[in-house]
């Protein structure tokens, strides 16, 4: 059976990546910009998926890791004169260090306590960003100048503010993420994470170090979120405290729930659908019921409740259960 999975899984995921690459050349301007954003956010969702979907750890504080990357890149580029590559690297390092610290502390708890501890750490970081508003710009945020967002290596000049380059960079980051997730999901490490999710006690009895595996998952997940945050800062040139707020901890949860936890493509599917649902529905609802002031709040609220009541496995989770048992 394992052999049959291998035959199908790689072509399927590579085909999806090829379609996304092709979209670069056919999408109209508006959707082209949105898709670039979605690809970066899907990296964030994939990182969340590793921890929530595969390892079964529900974090309510992933905005902290996204913000670590965002500010790691934004602050080093604003104050230390780092270029995009240096900024991205500092974002990744910040994310890795912070997720290691949070993991070491928060993984001592489990269940509800884990959710609240992660939420509290994220909230403390959000407030810290506001507290040091002289440096971070507080809720106004910082705008990264266009000149700082250009890579110059030897004779090659890559302008990351150009829409086409931006899309391809976002696509490249997402492609790396998909390959990484696919490798992890099918590796021994990924299977141990699923075993921990299903029955931690038994996994430990079988001789696996549950804490070390969960810590590794937290650090990889946090670093992926930070990569998304750093890329977001560099590609879209804005760093603001909204991205560290509770809302950005809940959004990846929603995306993964919708797309399907513990599926590699679920993170992308959920992000695309939810982004367009919020984006599209607000126009329709505004036109239809202008007096009701319907915003993303109502859409997100309804989506969360309906998903958890009637569709707890998400779209790809249900597909896998019914038709494609081997979907990683």
């Amino acid at each position: 059976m394992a052999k049959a999975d291998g035959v199908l899984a790689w072509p399927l995921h590579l085909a999806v990546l090829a379609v996304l690459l092709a979209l670069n050349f056919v999408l109209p301007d508006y959707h082209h910009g949105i898709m670039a954003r979605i690809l970066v956010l899907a990296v964030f969702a994939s990182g969340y998926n590793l921890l929530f979907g595969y390892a079964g750890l529900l974090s309510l504080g992933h905005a902290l890791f996204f913000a670590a990357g965002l500010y790691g890149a934004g602050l080093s580029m604003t104050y230390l004169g780092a270029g995009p590559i240096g900024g991205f690297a500092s974002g990744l390092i910040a994310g890795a260090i912070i997720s290691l610290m949070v993991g070491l502390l928060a993984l001592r708890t489990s269940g509800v306590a884990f959710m609240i501890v992660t939420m509290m750490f994220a909230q403390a970081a959000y407030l810290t960003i506001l507290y040091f508003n002289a440096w971070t710009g507080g809720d106004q945020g910082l705008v990264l100048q266009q000149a700082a967002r250009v890579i110059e290596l030897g004779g090659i000049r890559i302008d990351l503010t150009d829409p086409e380059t931006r899309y391809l960079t976002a696509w490249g980051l997402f492609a790396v993420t998909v390959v990484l997730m696919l490798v992890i999901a099918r590796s021994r490490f990924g299977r141990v994470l699923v075993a921990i999710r299903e029955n931690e006690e038994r996994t430990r009895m079988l001789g696996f170090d549950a804490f070390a595996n969960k810590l590794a998952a937290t650090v990889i997940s946090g670093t992926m979120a930070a990569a998304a945050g750093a890329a977001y800062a560099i590609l879209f040139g804005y760093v603001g405290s909204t991205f560290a707020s509770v809302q950005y901890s809940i959004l990846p949860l929603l995306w993964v729930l919708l797309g399907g936890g513990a599926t590699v493509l679920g993170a992308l599917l959920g992000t695309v659908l939810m982004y367009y649902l919020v984006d599209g529905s607000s126009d329709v609802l505004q036109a239809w019921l202008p007096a009701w002031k319907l915003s993303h709040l109502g859409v997100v609220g309804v989506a969360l409740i309906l998903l958890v009541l009637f569709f707890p496995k998400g779209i790809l989770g249900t597909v896998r259960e019914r038709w494609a048992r081997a979907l990683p």
Partner: protein
Amino acid sequence: MAFGPHLLLATLEGLVTAAVLALTALGLSLVFGVMRIVNVAHGEFYMLGAVIAWWVASLVTGHPALGFLAALIVSPLIVGAVAFVAERVVLRRLEYNPEATIVATIGLLYLLQQAALTFYGADARPVVAPFNFRVSLPWFGYSGYKLSVIAGSLLLLAITWFVLTRTRIGLVMRATQYDRETAQAFGIPVGRVYGGVFALGAMLAAVAAVLIVPISQAHYLMGLDPLLLSFIVVIIGGLGSLRGTLVAALLIGLSDGIISMFFSPTLAKIIATLAVALVLVFRPQGLFGVAAR
């Protein structure tokens, strides 16, 4: 002003915060204690209480005290009804699975915010205080209404304590908390107790909001702060421990008042959120709770 009067002012402000916080956190603690679920929408019941208080007060003409009294009675009742329906329609179907209920109450949080935005709007509006006099201290005058908020909260806390420990309703609730299956076997309608407890928790948040709304204004996004502060209080005090909740509310309220006055409100919140995370990590039963059975 010198340091002494400053400290007194900070202490008084802290006591007002602590009094309202104790009521709100007690609601959250009750729901967690009996139902074993974390209600992330708790802050939105607080917000709903404040918004409905404004609506009721704006309907009543005459002396502001009449409007306030009407709000004090009507607002918790409406909020309790909303919570009861939400519990019966959504949470019951999830069979109180901890992760699913958290996701569902996050959904409820957004829905209630949307409802407030739709029917109340994005403005912040105050309710006129029922009376207005200043208690003159040697160094400064202090709002008599704020002092009566402290007294009112203490009275409501005493009533809640009486209901929980000295009446049949409280006995039934404690029995359900202690052992759900046995309670059911003894003919206690556990489902209705759960609905009632969820409604009661929401009503405590709503009544706290009605008390505070003449001081701070009603706004559709006002629920996040009381939610986080209630979490902090409930966790530091020990989950499900009534006395711990009160002590922790006093501790958090006072330190919030004093740190806000001498340093900055944001710093006070940073310290409190970090403290709670560390308490959960290193002493999960809370500072005053006993280890779980």
